[in-house]
């Protein structure tokens, strides 16, 4: 057999070159840089000296970081529950609506909000939480003026208000995942259950839930990771306040970097956050994986 010419051997790497050149700089060098920064005293990109584990020690004794993690646990806990419960509920309800125009209308309806930029939706919620109008005007109208709050600016209500942004949490991708999941169950299974006289609720609990489990697992992992690494909604609504009542690690990391200019400490927080994300991802895979 003829040996491939050198040029032909090199071709595959030429195909990969553009992608890998960019990854070399913006992925591998960047992550290395983050790691190095976390052991250095870096201010606004100017490298100071090697400080060992000082940045990490500081993180563990930082009271704000502790509060951030607790807030994050609350936000992520609710985010995961809401990302599974409500879209699954809607997908189940839709399942029992006979295929037809109404069915398609409902499905399309839940997809539409995906086409609006997320920051726009967040800001609209911010208006709903406004002390002078929004939800408060409803409360005033129905005579519950005592219940009105400055929702995002009071320590007691800020965190829960952020958690509730997006209620009823149905629109978009997670709904579609469950919808697809339920529709890939063979029609025979559902038909057989109906002929056996199983009521809708039994079909849901005995047949759907066990079969939809892989999709629940997917949504669990996806929503957990996205809530741990994202900080857009807190950033745009409360900025972590009032005080530190809604501060979360990702936002704290951002503020330490671009507010205080302390890139070193910020990178240490980032590495810790990444470690948490990796551990949580592995744990959640284990948690569900054992029964697969």
């Amino acid at each position, binding site marked *: 057999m003829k040996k491939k010419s050198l040029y032909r051997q090199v071709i595959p790497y030429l195909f990969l070159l553009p992608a890998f050149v960019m990854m070399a700089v913006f992925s591998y060098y960047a992550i290395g840089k983050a790691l190095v920064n976390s052991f250095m005293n870096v201010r606004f990109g100017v490298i100071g000296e090697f400080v060992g584990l000082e940045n990490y020690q500081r993180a563990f004794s930082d009271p704000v970081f502790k509060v951030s993690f607790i807030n994050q646990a609350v936000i992520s806990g609710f985010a995961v529950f809401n990302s599974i419960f409500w879209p699954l509920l*809607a997908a189940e309800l839709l399942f029992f609506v006979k295929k037809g125009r109404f069915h398609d209308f409902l499905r399309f309806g839940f997809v*539409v909000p995906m086409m609006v*930029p997320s920051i726009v939706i967040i800001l609209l919620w911010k208006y709903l939480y406004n002390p002078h109008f929004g939800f408060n005007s409803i409360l005033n109208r129905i005579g519950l003026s005592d219940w009105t709050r400055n929702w995002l600016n009071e320590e007691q209500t800020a965190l829960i208000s952020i958690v509730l942004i997006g209620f009823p949490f149905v629109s978009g991708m997670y709904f579609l995942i469950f919808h697809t999941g339920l529709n890939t169950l063979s029609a025979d299974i559902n038909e057989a259950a109906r002929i056996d006289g199983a009521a809708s609720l039994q079909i849901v609990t005995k047949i759907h839930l066990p079969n939809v489990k892989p999709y629940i697992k997917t*949504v669990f992992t996806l929503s957990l990771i996205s809530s741990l690494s994202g900080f857009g909604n807190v950033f745009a609504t409360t900025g972590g306040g009032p005080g530190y009542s809604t501060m979360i690690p990702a936002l704290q990391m951002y503020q330490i970097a671009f507010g205080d200019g302390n890139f070193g400490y910020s990178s240490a927080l980032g590495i810790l956050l990444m470690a948490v994300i990796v551990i949580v991802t592995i744990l959640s895979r284990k948690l569900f994986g054992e029964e697969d």
Partner: protein
Amino acid sequence: MKTRISAGGIVSRIFILILLILTFVPLFVMFNMSLKPNVLIKTDFWGLPTEPYWANFVKAFSFSFKPVLNSLIVCAISLVGIIINVSLAGYAFGCLKFKGKTILYNLVLAVMMIPYTLMIVPTYEIVTKMNLLNTYWSLIIPYISGQQIFGIIIAASYFQGLPKDLFEAAEIDGANEWGKFFIIALPLSKPILITVGITAVVAMYNDFIWPTVVLTSGDEIKTFCQIVFNNAAGKGSNDLGLIAAAFIIGTIPLVVSMASTLKYYIQGMMVGAVKG
């Protein structure tokens, strides 16, 4: 056979309709606000306008035009880069044999694990060193690099599924690797490239955190979602009607691009979800 709708069926229909209505509350608020003058929004937030106040749209158009254009320029240039990188690398991983393929592929997969947040600081340092701050390129280059990862992974598995005999036939006809790529693989990969493209465009158009980091000088270069975010932070107009009209104007490009490719977008997210 006509199936009778049970009482339970009616309850579930009503319930899902309520969920749908609640989902649309923010969108209703947006349209309602956009058609009312600012004073009326503050005094009667939920009430419908007696007469649509179109002046909001006229005024909003003039100040949201440039940010939307900026977003579109950034998305368009990034998209070209992403499609080039993804089709080439996806083809190599999917169709070609070479040494170190598994290792290189795993290197791509590993990048998927890194949270976006951790990359902000080092990427900012790199972009600063490249003297790109406050240019479109400070968005475009990191976007290409970040968005190509997911694209390469799904494109590789798509290319792998293409029928092998097509390539063998082309080889007999004397086509070299580039010929096979341009004449056979590329035309066949249209659906997957649309999927990759729309997923990336949606993510880039929606992003406001990275623009906030690197575009800090003047408003004339800022993207639409960045301007919206700045407004949330208390900068810019206080006229809520105007803001809501600007929201709608800035949503149009996303609706247009997604409406024509929704099928591909959903497919992309599904594959991404399963892989993730």
